[in-house]
């Protein structure tokens, strides 16, 4: 490759619980790093300017645009992608709800939509449909018209609230 060594950096980060060390170009975005260097193709590239949200991943627990974050900025960070949450099963309830309402068609926005909805439910568990629409308004979906996505997230919110009440209720 024709890259000069001074434009590359060595980084170490945790991706889906696994420590990763790579030499990367300083200009490489996080999502390109995930897709090209780590072959984690579940994160998608839609606009590369931070609007569509398809590249959204979690960096140190917070949502981040993979296209507006450089890989080198994540040195020392903890990155989670759809592959990680699929392996852990932590979003299985949300995924089941999406499948049930058909809250996905082509599936290109879906991994990022799931991660975003999960963080939204964690941070603001009491949201109504309007609140969910606002919370998801940084993630573009061309196929569904959003209705079924909102239904799925609402249904998951209810189930999680019931589960949390049940977990707190002394037996």
């Amino acid at each position, binding site marked *: 490759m024709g890259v000069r060594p001074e434009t590359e950096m060595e980084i170490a980060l945790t991706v889906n619980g696994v420590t990763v060390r790579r030499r990367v170009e300083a200009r490489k975005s996080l999502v390109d790093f995930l897709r090209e260097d780590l072959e984690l193709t579940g994160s998608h590239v839609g606009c590369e300017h931070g609007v569509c949200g398809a590249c959204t991943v979690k960096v140190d627990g917070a949502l981040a645009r993979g296209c507006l974050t450089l890989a080198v900025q994540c040195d020392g960070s903890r990155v989670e992608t759809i592959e990680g949450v699929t392996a852990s099963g932590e979003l299985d309830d949300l995924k089941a709800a999406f499948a049930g309402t058909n809250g*996905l068609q082509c599936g290109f926005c879906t991994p990022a939509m799931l991660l975003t909805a999960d963080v939204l439910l964690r941070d603001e568990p009491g949201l109504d449909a309007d609140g969910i629409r606002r919370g998801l308004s940084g993630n573009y979906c061309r196929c569904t018209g959003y209705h*079924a996505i909102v239904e799925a997230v609402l249904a998951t919110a209810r189930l999680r609230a019931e589960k949390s009440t049940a977990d707190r209720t002394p037996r």
Partner: protein
Amino acid sequence: MTAEGATRPDRNEVIAQADSYIGKSPVRPQARRLLDGRGSFTDDVRLPRMLHVAFLRSPHAHARIVSLDAAAARALPGVVRVVTGEDLSGICAGWVGTLAHFQGMKSAMQHPLARGLATWQGEPVAAVVAESRALAEDGVARLAVEWAPLPAVTDAETALDPATPVIHPDLGDNLAFSLELASGDAARAFAEADHVVRDTFWMGRHTGVTLEPRSILAAFDPSERRLTVYHSFQAPHMMQDVLARHLGLPESHVRVICPDVGGSFGIKVHIYPDEMATCAIAVLLGRPVKFVADRLESFQSDIHARDHRVTAELALRRDGTMLGMRLDDLTGIGPYSVYPRTSAVEGNQTVRLTPGVYRFRDYAARLRVVFQNKTPMCQYRAVGHPVAFAVMEAMVDRAARELGLDPVEIRRRNYVTADMYPYTSQTGYFFERLSHEECLDKLLALSDYRARCAERDRLRAEGVYRGLGLCAFIELTTPGPAFYGVGGARISSQDGCTLKLEPGGGVTCTTGVTEQGQGTEAMLAQVVATAVGVPMEQVRVLTGDTLVSPYGGGTWASRGAGIGGEAALQSGKALKGNILRVAGAMLSCEPDDLDLRRGKIVDAATGEVRLDLAELGRVAYFRPDTLPKDFQSELTVTRHYVPRHQGFAFTNGIQLAHVEVDPGTGFVRLLGHWAVEDCGRIINPRLVDEQLRGAIVQGIGAALYEHCVYDAAGQLLTGTMADYLVPMAAEMPDIVVGHVETPTAYAEGGFKGAGEAGTAGAPGAVLNAVNDALAPLGARVTRQPITPDVVLRALGVLR
């Protein structure tokens, strides 16, 4: 979920059986994979020795390419090749986007890379092939081009003026196509009218904005001269044909694979110069080459849509009876008609569809399709429909308002009604049976329309401006060969479905229709499982691979269910018959006395299980020696289907938009949206609902937000998603969907299409709702998108 469509007496026995999946909404088989992030889109595919290509695109709308200096790009480490139009001239033949049935149509020869002349800002001019996309872009940045800018033709209104430069001098003028239609005697209708309404509408350019950009990976093996192409595309066989002919390869040497496709909507069914260049470069270099458009490239080079100026006049009696209509449509299509479907279809459908909901016969229309130096325009979801019905329905509402009639009643009075079918429209469209009155009644009930009208009237007194807008429509689906084939385009209107019984009892289905997320594979699995008599989990559907699937057209014009579904039904029935013949031979009984239910061979009369399908498979494939010597099992079958009895299976429906307009800011807030449509027999109600909802939101985008804005020099001003607004979740309303089911009698399944109904009606509904809200303020808009600026100008706040 909402498909509580009336049960009709004409139920088909295969479909009505107890174990039928038709009319049910099982979860799509591929949902899990996509939810797990295991989708495989074209950009996810990597091949050994793969290269990446980036394109130098014209920064000018119209310019001569004086010279290109590639030395600096070639010198860049990692750059493998700089490719110009001349480099590809011996590899890829050019193309002209005309069809014979559009009489007089003309367009210029187009090539993968511009030669000498760039005709829109964004046209690919040269390519840099490198070891990574980033390096290829570095190479593009080092190309030095000397341009000689020419005056740009941007305004369709003046494109035909003698003073306007002709983009392709050999064509003589900037007119790509024109058409005049006359039915009955429009002049007499206007002479006899009590009332005439006249309006001019401007329907802005917008584009598809598929979330997955156009993507292609072409791999060429020079030793066998075989080309394999992974392509985010809707019509793999069409692409195979085009690549074979234009690259000079035998058809059998070209394999097109469409893996997961991240949305298409008509964007990914056309021939794009950059994609042809990518394939030609793969041939040139003998290595795999990948091209994935970035978002700016998408806005500049994905086909744009609409861009019409329509002037319409409607003649009526005082009682609201429509007598006749005149229409003049001018549409700008960029510098080339797009290959191979042409850019005439949009305008052609607009002028033919406009009056089709109503029974008046006197109609005259003129269409002019002109060239301009903007991104090429071509077919996008609901081709022509949204413009046609926004115009028609806005005219109807205006007439109702001026005549003091109820918007519901004026429609009811003029519909083509249940007693009139079969019926041929003013413009020659054949309607087997539509259901306007039923859809209208159902919509009014579903939306609580009268209560919302009362609420609107009450709130007006409080200074709250809400509006309700209806839009009735027809939808062209399930096209036969009259659509493209008769014009000379090698685009298949027939489709096939091959079913294979696997030894273990599973059924593998391959078909020419394709999946882009709409649920084609799920819908087909339901049809096949029902027709064969196996659980849906035992059916595996594979689409989008020209090497393995029967020849077919792919997915466009809402043809998947009507054509692919019928082929699957017939193939399933045939496979079942063959399975029962094997079972009869094994059990020494008449096949007619047996049935296949839930994957078991049963006694047809008693339902008693006689044989497991896996046992039948074992014997048929591994121990045929135990079957009679004169018996040969046939457990792979193919059936094809093409609509023969009508040019299209028309469907119909109606939508209602509910909005609130803020006269201070001009903002339009969507409060709710309802749609009732009739796509014939529904295979999967949830998937149909979701087709409607997604399509409605695309229509809402066109109505309120989406606009490809150009300056006078032909520079695109909306090249990012921060400038070009798409509908996001926060602005969108809940959408309630209802159905009427009128199965087509021309095909056993009774299926028609549903992919475009939402987009067909939503812009008209929103336009009418906004105008209803503005009516008490004396304002009216006739321009889409209806931005705050448009509203404030209509109100006289801005000038």
